[in-house]
């Protein structure tokens, strides 16, 4: 599974993307955030406040309860600030 990080999630984790193989009990976006947060201090800082993190599953925006299913790509980013 490919993980993408944008904005301060990229800054805190120190990486723009990585490939991970989460264990089978990681079933939802929220599970994935909790599990990624255990991968190191940068990741822990990035996911310290999950309410501030938005996600997209295979490029579709989704909420934390969304099942991962057979997703190939999950992106994490802060609330957007365009315009």
């Amino acid at each position: 599974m490919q993980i993408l990080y944008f904005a301060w999630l990229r800054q805190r984790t120190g990486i723009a993307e990585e490939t991970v193989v989460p264990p089978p009990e990681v079933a939802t976006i929220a599970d994935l955030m909790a599990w990624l947060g255990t991968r190191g201090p940068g990741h822990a800082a990035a996911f310290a406040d999950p309410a501030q993190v938005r996600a997209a599953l295979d490029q579709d925006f989704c909420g934390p309860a969304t099942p991962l299913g057979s997703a190939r790509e999950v992106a994490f980013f802060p609330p957007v600030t365009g315009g």
Partner: protein
Amino acid sequence: MRPTVRVQAEAFDAAAETAHLAAGRADIGAIASFIGLCRADDGLAGMELEHWPGVTDRAIATIADDAATRFPLTGCTIIHRHGMMRPGDAIVLVIAASAHRAAALAAVGFLMDWLKTRAPFWKRESFADGSERWVEAKPDDDAATARWTRG
């Protein structure tokens, strides 16, 4: 009506885009437009706009198509820049053309509200003293967008 959507690093030419929407037509009664610019608030020296290549473009195209179904437009152009902006730089351009003013003005308001809250951009401000901060999303912007989904 096929909206024009571009996400680009380069500056845009609002006059040329407006002329392009109107060229060769005599059924347009109203062209409304909006330009968003980088302000120098609090000693801001620059603002880096990060986007998600491919996905940001498609998200804006979806919003533009939605506007075209909500409002009777003859044309619509959205150009959003990414990369480093300096105070005074133009960041975003939205133009909507229609037979009548109400549709053109409402479409521009709708598109700006949605761009603010739904288009994947993230702004990092840098200041004269060397400090940096990520711009936080504004509850006001979410409320503005919610206007279009009520009723």
